């Protein structure tokens, strides 16, 4: 788990009842994301940053017990160019931090990194050296990308398990993009998104995508939590339709798909885009078992009074055990987990710093 003031590692056996919490790693630093390599269960990558000291990438090869700083040279390739600033004027791309790390499925030394200002980087030597896949940032639409309130961050990276050349990314307030050639060229995939905040509803960029999720057995199907609206695509992002259905509010940040049920989707509705906390003081995860439109609140074990927390876009994850587990961390420093697909929840730890990200690994 990444938090505002360090990283924490929670461990439990397969019953997922008794959780051990590590001491903070990198205490005092913002840890935007930690993620493990599917190809090497003991290898973890962590994005460590600070307003004072900038960006550091850390790597562990022993499951998070020890860490070594690796490379932190994130240089934009070629002419830097401009994107739009909040006031509508051009401003040069400026590297700030890494929001998301996505290790390759079959090679522990290959890892992708999503940056603010938005760019996709890749390392093929375990994080020591980073190269920008600059076809994304040099897309003809990129000079019109404009940051959202959280900055112009590339926060979602999905590597298609069925097609090693296909990559999906999402950028806050720019939208979603797909590459079918390993990251060389990119296509905006925002058709069908509707955003009151932009004048041209058919604009190819400018939609504020908060998170995208995919089930590994159906890589053509994507789910999206947008600034407002929960969306679904059945054609790898070529078109989207809204599946917010009976959600009490369709604003939110995270979205996750059950590991074994590709039509089971989870979101955490937030009251509004100006009130970044759950409605009515009740923390409710909403689950759809029909791929959207029909949603049920999950409340057992979650606080149902006086709760005003948020769950950020990278702070929800599912495990691959059976029955499937789901976990999320809050802006209040609580981490909740369910070992039965969301029917019942337990507080795994509380009183941590605000949680930025949660990832889950099932170890062999």
């Amino acid at each position: 788990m990444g938090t505002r003031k360090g990283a924490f590692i929670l461990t439990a056996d397969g019953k997922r009842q008794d959780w051990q919490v590590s001491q903070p790693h990198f205490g005092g630093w913002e840890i935007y994301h930690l993620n493990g390599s599917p190809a090497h269960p003991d290898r973890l990558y962590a994005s460590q940053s600070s307003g004072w000291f900038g960006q550091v990438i850390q790597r562990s090869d022993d499951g998070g017990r020890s860490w070594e700083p690796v490379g932190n040279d994130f240089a934009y390739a070629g002419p830097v160019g401009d994107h739009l600033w909040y006031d509508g004027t051009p401003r040069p791309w400026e590297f700030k931090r890494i929001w998301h790390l996505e290790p390759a499925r079959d090679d522990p030394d290959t890892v992708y990194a999503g940056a603010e200002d938005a760019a996709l980087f890749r390392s093929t030597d375990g994080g020591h050296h980073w190269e920008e896949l600059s076809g994304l940032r040099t897309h003809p639409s990129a000079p019109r990308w404009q940051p959202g309130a959280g900055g112009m961050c590339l926060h979602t990276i999905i590597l298609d398990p069925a097609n090693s050349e296909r990559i999906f990314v999402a950028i806050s307030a720019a939208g979603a993009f797909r590459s079918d050639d390993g990251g060389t060229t990119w296509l905006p995939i925002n058709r069908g998104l509707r955003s009151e905040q932009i004048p041209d509803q058919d604009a190819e960029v400018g939609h504020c995508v908060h998170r995208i999720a995919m089930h590994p057995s159906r890589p053509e199907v994507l789910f999206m939590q947008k600034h407002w609206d929960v969306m679904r695509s059945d054609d790898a992002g070529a078109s989207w339709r809204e599946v917010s259905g009976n959600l009490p509010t369709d604003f939110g940040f995270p979205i996750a798909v059950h590991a074994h049920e590709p039509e089971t989707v989870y979101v955490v509705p937030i009251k509004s885009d100006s009130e970044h906390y759950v409605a009515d003081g009740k923390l409710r995860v909403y689950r759809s078992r029909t791929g959207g439109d029909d949603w049920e609140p999950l409340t057992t074990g979650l606080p149902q009074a006086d709760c005003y927390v948020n769950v950020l876009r990278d702070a929800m994850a599912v495990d691959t055990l059976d029955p499937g587990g789901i976990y999320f961390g809050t802006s209040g420093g609580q981490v909740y987990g369910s070992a039965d697909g969301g029917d019942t929840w337990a507080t795994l730890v509380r009183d941590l710093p605000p949680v930025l990200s949660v990832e889950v690994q099932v170890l062999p």
Partner: protein
Amino acid sequence: MIRVVLPAHLKNLARVGSEVRLEVTEPVTQRRVLDALEARYPMLRGTMRDRTTGHRRAFIRFYACEEDLSNESPDAPLPDPVLAGAEPFLVVGAMAGG
């Protein structure tokens, strides 16, 4: 021998104690001290100076001999007591909340 004191977070990152001692060829300037520091501790690259521009990061300050040298030219010679090892070159995290 140049003595350099790092802020706590960078000491942890570089896994060094209270003070780092560096050999720096003359003329001893801020740039050369930082170059030598980063050469010995590569994990510090980018933490004090922007990797692209080489400019001091906004919330980093450089002090020596009770003087704030943060906005001096990086190629200006450092004070004699720093060259003589009598006074340390201090890398300081600015007071900026958080």
